[in-house]
Every structure is written in structure tokens, then in C-alpha cells.
């Protein structure tokens, strides 16, 4: 679809620009300001230049060590949940019934975890996994697996990952399902005439058609898992020790717990920069993919 050049369109965008700038740029300026200063309380600030940034990127210091460790944990967490949720989401989408009331029922049940407040998601799994009162914890322990997410690192990780799979796989599945629904029946009929195997249908028809939505799914899942805070905080509180402390949890600890504004601000900026870069890469890939398929846009 050709778009006409019209600079007056800025007037239509202006309200959005202003409201987002108010919530994004203004606070970020405060963060930049803090990141260059040190404070001993009482609103007295001292110029610290790039000191916090140097410390942040140097693993031998306390701040740097904590940041890099939590970053590593966070990246590992994102990789694991993507590796589970994307294939599982595709399989579930392929298993959806084709029509009738069962579709609506499945969609509603699948969307349910997405609309539960994140701290309640944490609470649900906190209860569900407890060895004394939770079904999962009790069942695991009674079949002889010594499971306790409060004291065992591996169990804590397993709980947080299973919780995330529970919480977000539906998103991937719903996106893929939307992609599958847009495939015209003619494609399948053609495949049948050609005698294509199920696997061939999947790789040659279904997967390419899901490309675009899968990209959105991976982007959203990566970003949201990279800034995860509430759910693991409620379940494990970042523990045992620091084993499930992700970047956001570390950041909130420094900013609102210790009130170390300079350190927290420097961490925020680096954190935001990483997200911006990843986001830019995805955006470029996505718009390129969109340009290739431009004629099909809006065929939904």
C-alpha cells in the first residue's frame, strides 16, 4: 500500500509523542543525572563522572560482580524458556481443534494465565510447589523426589521455569494459531494432490506462514523474560542465596532497597541499552520480512 507524504500527520501523532515522552524521556533524564553522581543522603550529590559505569562493567568489584552474575542468569533463563515455549507453543497450536465450541473453550482456557496479575501467578506457584500444602510439592515428595524450592537451587530454578512455561506458552500458541488460521484451504488441497507428507506440509506451508507471528512471539517472550521481576520475586525472593536473582530484582534491590541511586541509575542505563539494541535488531528483521510480504499485508 503506497503511503502519501504528509507532514501534517505529525499533528495526529503529537499527543502520543507527548504522553510517551512525558513518561519515558523525563524519567530517563533523571536516571542519566543520577548515574553520574554519588550521594551520602540529605540530597547532597557529588560528581562521579563515569565511575559507576566503570565499576559496573568490572567483574572484580561488588557492583560489577552482582550485575554480570544476574545478567548471566537472566540470559540463561531467557534461553531456556524460549527453547521450551516456542516448540511447545507450535505443537499446541497445531493440536488445536478446527472448529466448534471446543475452539472457543480452548482459547479462553489458554488465555486465562495471561490475565492473572503477575504477583498472583507467583502466589499460585508458591502455594502449588510447597511440600506441605501444595499439590505439586506434596506429590513430588510423596513419590520420593526430594523437592523443596526454598532451599534447593535446582528446585528453585525448575519452579521458576515451569511457572514461566505455564504463564506464557499460551501466548506463543495463540500467536501461532492465528498464523495457522490465515492459511487458505487451497494450500492444503494442493499439498494433498502432490502427496506431501505431514512433515513436508509443516515445513513448506505452515512454518513459513507462521514466520511473522513467531518473530513477534520470540521478541515479546525474550523481552518480557529479560525484564522479569514479580513472579520469581514472589516465589523465591531471588533465592536461595542469589541463585534466582535476575537483573530487575538486583536493580530494585539496589535502587529501592539500599537507595544507592548512582549505582542503580548506571545499571538502569546499561540495562536499557541492551534492550534497545536487541529491540532494534528484531525491528529491522521484522520490517524487512514485512517489506518482502508487503502485497499480502492486511489479508488477515
Amino acid at each position, binding site marked *: 500500500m503506497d503511503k502519501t507524504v504528509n507532514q501534517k500527520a505529525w499533528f*495526529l501523532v503529537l499527543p502520543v509523542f507527548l504522553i510517551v515522552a*512525558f513518561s519515558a524521556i523525563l*524519567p530517563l533524564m533523571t536516571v542519566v543525572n543520577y548515574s553520574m553522581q554519588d550521594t551520602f543522603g540529605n540530597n547532597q550529590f557529588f560528581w562521579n563522572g563515569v565511575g559507576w559505569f566503570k565499576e559496573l562493567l568490572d567483574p572484580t568489584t561488588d557492583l560489577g560482580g552482582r550485575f554480570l552474575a544476574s545478567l548471566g542468569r537472566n540470559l540463561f533463563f531467557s534461553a531456556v524458556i524460549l527453547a521450551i515455549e516456542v516448540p511447545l507453543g507450535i505443537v499446541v497450536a497445531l493440536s488445536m481443534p478446527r472448529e466448534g465450541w471446543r475452539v472457543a473453550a480452548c482459547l479462553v482456557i489458554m488465555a486465562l494465565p495471561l490475565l492473572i496479575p503477575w504477583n498472583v501467578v507467583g502466589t499460585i506457584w508458591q*502455594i502449588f510447589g510447597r511440600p506441605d500444602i501444595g499439590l505439586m510439592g506434596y506429590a513430588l515428595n510423596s513419590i520420593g523426589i526430594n523437592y523443596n524450592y526454598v532451599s534447593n537451587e535446582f528446585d528453585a530454578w525448575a519452579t521458576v521455569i515451569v511457572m514461566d512455561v505455564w504463564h506464557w506458552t499460551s501466548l506463543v500458541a495463540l*500467536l501461532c494459531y492465528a498464523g495457522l488460521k490465515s492459511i487458505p484451504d487451497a494450500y*492444503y488441497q494442493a499439498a494433498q494432490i502432490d502427496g506431501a507428507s505431514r512433515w513436508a506440509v509443516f515445513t513448506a506451508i505452515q512454518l513459513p506462514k507462521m514466520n511473522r507471528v513467531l518473530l513477534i512471539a520470540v521478541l515479546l517472550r525474550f*523481552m518480557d523474560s529479560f525484564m522479569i521481576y514479580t513472579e520469581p520475586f514472589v516465589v523465591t525472593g531471588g533465592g536461595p542465596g542469589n541463585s534466582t536473582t535476575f537483573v530487575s530484582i538486583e536493580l530494585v534491590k539496589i*535502587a529501592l532497597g539500599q537507595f544507592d541511586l548512582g549505582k542503580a541509575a548506571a545499571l538502569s542505563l546499561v540495562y536499557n541499552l541492551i534492550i534497545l539494541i536487541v529491540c532494534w535488531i528484531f525491528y529491522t528483521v521484522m520490517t524487512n520480512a514485512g517489506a518482502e510480504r508487503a502485497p499480502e499485508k492486511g489479508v488477515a
Partner: protein
Amino acid sequence: MHSIPGRRIILSLFLIFLLLPIYWLVNMSFKTNTEIVTTMTLWPHQPTLANYMRIFTDESWYSGYINSLKYVVINTVLSISFALPAAYAFSRYRFLGDKHLFFWLLSNRMAPPAVFALPFFNLYSAINLFDTPWAVALAHCLFNVPLAVWILEGFVSSVPREIDETAFLDGYSFPRFFIKILVPLIASGIGVAAFFCFMFSWVELLLARTLTSVNAKPISAVMTRTVSASGMDWGLLAAAGVLTIIPGALVIWFVRNYIARGFALGRV
């Protein structure tokens, strides 16, 4: 044809996996604390409504729900009304810096709330909005407005532009065209966008908790406080959790036919 072998089993297992933890929460909300702590029962043997009664009669509990709903509704209305014209502009016109602007908006959807918690606290304290629903509603605009623009842009783009041109030839002014023709055409898109704004505002806790203290305390903050203060009142906690699921479930029911397309953000 787009089915795979064993699909019934896979799907059933997945749905059971989704429902089991929720069932456990509902189950616990109808139990007394003695039953929860002393025995392991798969369903409440002495069902009780005491937990729910306490929430509905204690103001510090039920006001939490009202506070949450207040900022969620304000945020949804703000986000949609700001995003609609912008979505139209992005879909129909090219203008200076449009691509960069769109990317910048998108990047705000991805910004971690933890980064903004402290500066927001300072900002909204400075303009005297701290501890009001407006502070939370405006703060949630940070990620909901870009999301709404993104979704609505997809839906506006699926309206053929000949319709715009015909309307303008018929003498419609821009605002009249917008309200009388475009908005009804993309009504389902607006519904989907509103659903998402509702959803992300409803589930967010970190900013909502940071920007309120007493008067506008959201339900999620009330819950966290009670967990640590009153020891472990598991039954009450479970009942409060169940009540937070209900608004979401109701909203899903209304948009069930658009869910799939909505989650693809209008771009399938």
C-alpha cells in the same frame, strides 16, 4: 489437514497443566486454615466462605480491588484515545521521522519497569499525583500507548484507503470521518487494543506498588502486605487471588472470538 498425530492427548495434557494450579488456588480458597495446614485434601472437606466474607466486609481489602479497577479503566481510556489518531497517521501517511518514531514507541513497550520505578516515584511526587490512580494510569501509558498504537495500526491498515477517499469526496470533515466511519469499521480492533491495555495494566505490580502508598493501594499490593504481616493466612490469600482472576476471565469471554487475531497484534 493442519492437525498432527496424538493432538487430542497433547492438547488435553496442556490444558490440564494450565488448569491444575488454578484449581488448587480455588480449592484452597474454600478451605479453613486448619484444613490447609493439617491435611492434604484434593477438595475442601469442610467448605467455607469465611475467606471471601472477610474480603467483602473489610474495607482495606475490597478497596484494593476498586483502586486497581480505577487506574486500569483510566489507563485504557487514555491509551485508546491517544493511540487512535496516531495509528491512523502511521498507517496512511509518511512523514518526517515516522520510522524512527515508531521504533522509539515500540522500544518503550520493551522498557523494563524496574528502570522506571524510582524516577517515576520522584516525578509523580513532584507534581502531586503520588498515591492517586492517575499516577499509575499515566505510568502504565508508557507501555500501553505504544502497544495500542501498534495493534490499531494493523487494524487501520486492513481498511482499504478508498473508503477514506470516498468519505472525503462526500464532504466529510476529518473528525466526522474518523468518528462516523473509521471507528465503527475497526470496532473489533479497538476492542482488542482495549483488551490488551486492560490486561497489561491489570497484571502489572511493580509500578503500581511503587506509585501508591495508602489511598490508591492496588489489590496486588494489599496482597503482598498481608502475606508478610499476618503470618500465613493461606485461605485468605487464595481467596484474594481467585478474585483477581475473575475480571480477566470476564474480559476474555467478551473478546473470545477475536483473541487469536488480537494476540497477533492485528498482523497475521
